[in-house]
């Protein structure tokens, strides 16, 4: 069977991912970012490692040591998750880590709520859906996971979601943002309908759209549309909204093409 020498191999292809890999291991990188507080540290670390049991254990220990359960959401869980998000954005860790950390975080939040009387304050609610007629929901699942991981409440309307259901969910939940995902050239037109009905009802909430079939030029055609290329853009757009960006400003920042 034919084979290359090492020398030959380099001339035919380049494994850019291997060539570019960061010096530090993910664990080392995370270690540098964890908070030093000895009660918080184990919780953040457990979030990073995606170990729900350890998260709960850490929370219990902190509560036992006198911390207020509800404040631990922001002070421990979100801090741990911020480490995860940063390392994902930097390309040090991959999506499944984020998903598992997010799962662990949600368990943690649940635990804090159970151990507290006050309801936690979230950064805001986001309504997510996959366009009517479209069952491709992996992209949407990633988007919801990353939004949750960044402290947003998510109302997940699932896939193949009728236009009217999206509009109704907006009326009901008063989200700071709606997201739509479409992977088929036939289904993405539903976004325009969603937009029109929202505008008609005076619900001028930013409508972030993405997914394989969707492109910036298409999204820029309707008033509320903001195009997002990668799932990781979704929490960034949401954060920008909280920070006061209007749709024009969002487009300025996220329409890269």
């Amino acid at each position, binding site marked *: 069977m*034919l084979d290359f020498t090492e020398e030959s191999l380099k001339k035919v292809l380049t494994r850019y*991912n*291997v060539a570019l890999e960061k010096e530090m291991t993910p664990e080392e990188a995370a270690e540098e970012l964890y908070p030093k507080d000895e009660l918080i540290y184990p919780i953040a670390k457990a979030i990073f490692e995606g170990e729900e049991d350890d998260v709960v254990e850490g929370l219990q220990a902190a509560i036992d040591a006198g911390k207020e359960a509800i404040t631990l959401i922001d002070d421990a869980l979100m801090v741990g998750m911020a480490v995860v998000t940063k390392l994902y954005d930097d390309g040090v860790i991959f999506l*499944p880590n984020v*998903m598992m950390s997010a799962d662990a975080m949600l368990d943690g939040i649940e635990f804090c709520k159970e151990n507290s009387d006050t309801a936690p304050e979230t950064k805001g609610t986001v309504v997510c859906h996959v366009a009517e007629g479209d069952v491709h929901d992996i992209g949407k699942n990633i988007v919801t996971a990353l939004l949750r991981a960044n402290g947003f409440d998510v109302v997940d309307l699932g896939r193949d979601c009728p236009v009217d259901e999206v509009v109704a969910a907006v009326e009901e939940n008063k989200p700071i943002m709606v997201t739509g995902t479409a992977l088929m050239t036939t289904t993405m037109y539903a976004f325009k309908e969603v937009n029109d009905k929202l505008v008609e009802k005076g619900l001028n909430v930013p409508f972030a759209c993405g997914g394989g079939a969707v492109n910036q030029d298409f999204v820029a055609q309707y008033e509320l549309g903001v195009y997002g290329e990668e799932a990781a853009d979704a929490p960034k757009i949401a954060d920008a909204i909280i920070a006061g960006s209007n749709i024009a400003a969002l487009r300025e920042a996220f329409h890269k093409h």
Partner: protein
Amino acid sequence: MVANRYTSMAYESADEMSFGKTKHPVKAGLGLEIGAGYTIPEVNYAPRPEAGASKEKLVNEYERITTDIMQRMVQVGFPAVILETEHVQQMSNNPEWGAEVAHAQKTIMEEYHDEYGIKCALRHTIGDIRENRDFLQLRGDKYSVFMEAFEKCAENGADLLSVESMGGKEVFDYAILRNDIAGMLYGIGCLGTLDMDMIWSDIAAVAKKTGTIAAGDTDCAQANTAMFIAGGLLDKNLAHTLAIIARAISAPRSLAAYENGALGPGKDCGYENVIIKAITGMPMTQEGKTSTCAHSDVMGNLIMQCCDVWSNESVEYHGEFGGTSVQCRGESLAYDCALMNTALETGNEKVLRDMFMLSDRYRDPQGYVLAYDNAYKVGEAIVKDGDNIYLRAKNAAIECCNIVEEGVAGKLSISRFEAGALKDAKAALDALPDDMDQFMDDCLTKYQSEVKVFLPENYGF
């Protein structure tokens, strides 16, 4: 019907395999013999969104597409072609739509065959419509419509019957985003195979009744989903080492079609087809460097190594400077085939095969495992416990890990991240039970509680 499980390999050795040649060629359509010493282009297309507005518009769109392709083939002197129509939802949900499209296409193909003698066949790939908005409904109301779609198309001109079926997907979708190897094994290897056994014995019966060919299935819904999420070298959504484990597990799953009466050519997007060819000796369609219109991959040449039919996966019908998109892609495919056929006729197929393979062998762990020599090894691991659908899937996964590890000891370089994912996967696999029943029970309990859309009745549990 009880599935005839494979417990041995069709080829004595990996080196016996090549593109264009099979142990069991398939006669189909108008004069074609598939896998009988030559490769054939298979052109795939998607109608423009606006063409779906009515049945008339849709039929008209497919007529144009068919004429365009046939016309280009004779213009450039290509002796054979296959057309694949992947149903849009309306065509499977309303079987008479699919039937009318098949009839219209076949009429045009017959004219060309009569006038020019060009050999050709028509594949219809029925949409797996067995789902509603929230759940898979594999055995529900839609099953009879699903089967009717196969039958009506077969009666009206389709020569090759295929589907990209979805059994196991609910569990897989959950597992793949969580590095959950047991879930992948359960979704693809166990649930997927159970569903395959059911639908393919029925599809094969339709084919028998209508005198057509049950061609084959692909694990598009799972292994390809993993491959897509894994993406290019710089994407960070999934380790490529995990994507290739999903692929290895998909081989015994897609194999079930052939164990229930399918004859090939296997469907284009089944990158697992090379393993299946090694086991069955049946012809396979593949797609790669000439299907960039539909997706990017990291083994565009390698995957040509043992193809019998060569496809562009899908291209939306539209104009390009050089003609319509189907003409452009069809011509590129046909030239690729002309090259392979030249190699076959001059006795150079093995060196060409090796060059295809080698050019991507070290590009990515996925290509490394699918290189025909390694793919053959995965096949051996499968047939070793061919009668046990759990064990053979687990074997495939373990062999896949071993192959990557050996590769890394040699010229395959993987990122630290990929290596870590591989190590964790290997450990997870080692921790699994040897007993199928136990595994099935464990998983049923676990995923019923974790995956809310998983309905055991879909699998007859």
